[in-house]
């Protein structure tokens, strides 16, 4: 295998992983701190992508549309928190699952009523469509490079925020022990609303940047939600660092599995078997990864709660 192909696949894994991280970061914080399972997290990602697509159509400027969509989605997220989700914090996980599943159905149909069933157009900004030569002979999509840059920037920002600010300290305290945070006099309610807004904003960022390479359509949230859950469980619920490591692991393992597993199988088995088995094994790989991690570390790689 040429090294440039290997490098390209690693970049692909990195890019996919970073986008998963954006989704997983909000999910893991909401889960870890509020102890709330929010299945509707993926719906916020969908809303973010739809808003971006609509705003690009209206303003014609990609970056402006992204900023507005992120703000809009954060607002919608906070509205959801204040109106419905807040009532679920004290309820058991199963009620939360049922309620937020109901929200998925409602939001999906709502989006369908507003925008219709056909997928929406969302293209990468003019200057970024097309490849650039990052190493001699290695061409890579400029937009995917942008995604990597944005993902890394947000990851660094989040880690700084969580590890080096007062609000971040509250968050960590809350993730490890809710009662203690409350006893410290942290204004829990507004903090939760704000946190939910941040989670929604991160979803919108993912939606805005994945929209140009994935189909913007109803149901796009659910297909990626399960992956986000896999990520946070591997990383350890409530841990931003865990979410980052988990997301990169999932991104790279999944990409590498798809890219290299059929080739490897081709070396040892007949092409017929390899082409049958390869995709199946590649699909299983991330679930296998999760099962193995949980087998050895039942609390994930970086448990936030002790």
């Amino acid at each position, binding site marked *: 295998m040429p090294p440039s192909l290997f490098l390209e696949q690693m970049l692909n894994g990195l890019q996919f992983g970073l986008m998963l991280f954006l989704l997983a970061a909000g999910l893991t914080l909401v*889960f870890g701190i509020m102890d709330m*399972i929010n299945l509707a997290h993926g719906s916020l990602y969908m809303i973010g992508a739809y808003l971006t697509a609509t705003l690009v159509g209206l303003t014609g400027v990609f970056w402006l549309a992204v900023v507005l969509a992120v703000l809009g989605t954060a607002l919608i997220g906070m509205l959801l928190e204040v109106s*419905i989700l807040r*009532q*679920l914090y004290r*309820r058991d*996980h*199963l*009620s939360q*699952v*049922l*309620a937020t*599943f*109901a*929200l*998925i*159905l*409602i939001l*999906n*149909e*709502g989006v*369908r*009523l507003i925008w219709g069933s056909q997928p929406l157009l969302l293209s990468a900004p003019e200057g970024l469509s097309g490849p650039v030569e990052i190493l001699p002979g290695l061409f890579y999509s400029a937009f995917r490079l942008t995604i990597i840059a944005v993902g890394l920037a947000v990851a660094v920002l989040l880690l700084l925020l969580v590890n080096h600010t007062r609000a971040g300290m509250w968050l960590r305290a809350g993730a490890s022990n809710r009662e203690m945070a409350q006893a410290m006099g942290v204004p829990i309610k507004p903090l939760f609303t704000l946190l939910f807004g941040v989670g929604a904003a991160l979803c919108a960022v993912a939606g805005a940047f994945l929209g140009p390479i994935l189909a913007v359509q109803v149901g796009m949230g659910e297909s990626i939600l*399960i992956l986000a*859950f*896999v990520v946070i*469980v591997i990383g350890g*619920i409530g841990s931003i660092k865990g979410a980052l490591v988990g997301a990169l692991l999932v991104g790279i393992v999944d990409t590498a599995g798809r890219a290299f597993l059929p080739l490897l199988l081709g070396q040892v088995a007949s092409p017929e078997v390899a082409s*049958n*088995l390869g*995709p*199946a094994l590649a*699909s*299983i790989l991330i*679930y*296998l990864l*999760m*099962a193995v991690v*949980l*087998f050895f570390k*039942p*609390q*994930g790689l970086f448990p936030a709660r002790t």
Partner: protein
Amino acid sequence: MLRKGWLLLLLGLLLAFPPVASATGLEFYMGLLTKIMIFALAASSLNLILGYGGMVSFGHAAYFGVGAYTVAILTREGLTSAWVIWPVALALCALLAFLIGAISLRTRGVYFIMITLAFAQMIYFVVVSFKQYGGEDGLRARRPEFGLFELNDTTLYYLTLGVLAACLYGLYRLVGSRFGRVLQAIRENESRTAALGYPVYYFQLLAFVLAGTLAGLAGVLMAHYTQYASPNLLAWQQSGHLMMMVILGGVGQFWGGVLGAVVLSLVEEVLQDLTIHWQLGVGVILLLVVLFAPKGLAGLWRRRKGL
């Protein structure tokens, strides 16, 4: 528990339904009832571990689907006797539940939810990778021979009714038995139950295997009903669907699984007839139930009756 009289009346009505249906051209509802009863069995089996055992399995569809696929694959391979197919399917589901449970029960809480999901997903992808068994298209499942009677829509209805009634009675005895009591004690307070000297792990594992086997039984019936095994039966959405039924009906309430299966199926059926945007309606109803009936519909019922 509902009063005996009401139960007998309900059973009588269900027994009398098929002749009435075929006389009045309502055969469709016989099929619908068959499907609902199958889901009632699957949801009740999930309720055993989720409600009574406190084990939130997000991979219950695996056994449901494997049960159905066993029927499809064996009939395709030329086996026609239900007396072979049923035991093989159930044994396979039991074995699978044993392996998955033995590993998954090392974890707790959300990690348990996710590891059961992981195993179910692996099974899903393994099953669809067998091209000779239909892959993503699914596989036709012929109805097997029982010898005593021919399996048609009517006999399948009675068979399902009989299996459901027997399983529910068995579950009823189980949750009131010594074993059932310990299972619920573990849900209430695991560390205390362990400190009393109960081997918690084995109790949970046994319940897990039992629930998986019953779900497999439901899957076998499902294959007889649709004469088809589709990958959708194994998908995580199916696990979610079963969970919705249990939560909607009432977690850990004896009739929770049955009630949830009946209500959710009927709501979907009615709303689908009315509008393409029926999922909006289902969503709103589910949300209202969570907000205003915290213990599910069975809980609502109990509260009304002041029990």
